[in-house]
């Protein structure tokens, strides 16, 4: 973990060039987590499809984030990791996976990666409950 006031190059790269920002109009599952009072709210949209073996996968993913650099790059990292994964695999993504993808996160920002995982779980569970 890095000290406060310093982000890894990878964090800044994702923050500056996010690829998965936006909405999915025909999303199969939507998850919202966080609290404006604390300063971070994440919204994740997923589209579910099937892979060659017939397993359900995250065919597409988009997100919207209100929050700091760590919150935005954590959701971006989450989207990059989750895309193409089976729902089963996606539910196993941990906050540690996100932090590792980002190189590292400042200690006091670690909760951003936790929030990302929770938001994805909510989106997947919403889909599974609707099914």
């Amino acid at each position, binding site marked *: 973990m890095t000290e406060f006031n310093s982000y890894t190059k990878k964090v800044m790269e994702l923050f500056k060039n996010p690829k998965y920002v936006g909405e999915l109009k025909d999303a199969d599952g939507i998850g919202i987590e966080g609290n404006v009072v604390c300063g971070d709210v994440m919204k994740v949209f997923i589209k579910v499809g099937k892979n060659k073996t017939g397993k359900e996968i995250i065919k597409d993913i988009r997100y919207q984030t209100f929050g700091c*650099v760590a919150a935005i790059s954590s959701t971006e990292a989450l989207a990059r990791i989750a895309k193409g994964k089976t729902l089963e695999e996606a539910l196993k993504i941990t906050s540690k996976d996100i932090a590792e993808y980002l190189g590292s996160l400042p200690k006091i920002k670690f909760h951003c990666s936790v929030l990302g995982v929770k938001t994805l779980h909510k989106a997947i569970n919403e889909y599974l409950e609707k099914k």
Partner: protein
Amino acid sequence: MKKRIYLDYAATTPTDPRVVKAMLPYFSKQFGNTMSIHSFGQRVRQAVEDTRMKIAGLVHAEASDIFFTGSATEANNLVIKGIAWANKDKGKHIIISSTEHHCVLNAAEWLGKQGFDITVLPVDKYGLVKPESVEQALRKDTILVSIMHANNEIGTIEPIKEIGKVCRDAGVPFHTDAAQSFGKIPIDVERMNIDMLTASSHKMYGPLGVSALYVRKGIKIEPLLHGGGQEQNLRSSTVNVAGVVGFGKAVEIAKKEMKREARVQTRLRDHLIKNILSKVEDSHLNGHPKRRLPNNANFWFAYIEGESLIMKMDAAGIAAGTGSACSSLRLEPSHVLLAIGLKPEEAHGSLRMSLGRFTEKSDVDYAIRVLPKIVKNLRNISPFKGSWKT
């Protein structure tokens, strides 16, 4: 070349090259310890006393009432704790305001745990302390009132003269933290009824590591540091000669240029405020529209967070500040913005741009061009569109 525009003068200022030049001889050629009786000591002692006179001159005080410290935080701690310790037989009540700098707030809070009684006065939506509220809070056992001159975040200038009058009439020592205003707007300790005042060097183009405290004669303060008895026994430590000399040069420059600088910066500030408020939807000014430091502009933008905003601006070459929780070590939004009535989510979206001596109109125009695009970009990322509902 990549642009690098500094709009964070309220955090710290660059040392003026004229100041650096004045300091240089005092590192190796004109070195000495002011306590030494030989010529090396006497020469630097004279340089330190010259600065004392310059500082006194800028605020209409007596040179023998000026004391050097290592920082404004130290000066404020010295006042708050030193007055408390020296006067606890008289009373244990201290009055401050809710928008004071953390060094005043936290020193007072610490005293609260030692059995002192601290009143934290509220401010209005502009950050102003009402002199009447000071009057109402005063008690027989009040030993100190400390209200800042100008706020470091939102730039609001407090009615110090009126508050000072209330304290003077009640016979209670009055301190003002002028770290942000000293050298930027006129201060007169006589006319403004000030008994103690904190002045900082690095906020007005002097070096870091030196500050001054004015203490009117007759006020009892217990020192924080015990040692060789420097600064009339109020602040033991070998005097930071080069720092003090630099501070003196900065004061000398301010005395000559303050008026013109304030005029130029006020114009740039108002140009910046007017344009940002008109070009960015859902943008709001924090602090008072008129009663504010010439160099301070502070906004909040709905639906985005300040640390992201600062980092996007940094990528575009502009350095600024925010009161968002996410940029603080404590993960709490600015106590100043909450005190003026902002909701936490509103305080998260705050941005402070503070101008200075070396700010050009083209710098401000660049910020006016770039900032609306950055806010728009972050609002695209945000789940909140025109309301706080997701």
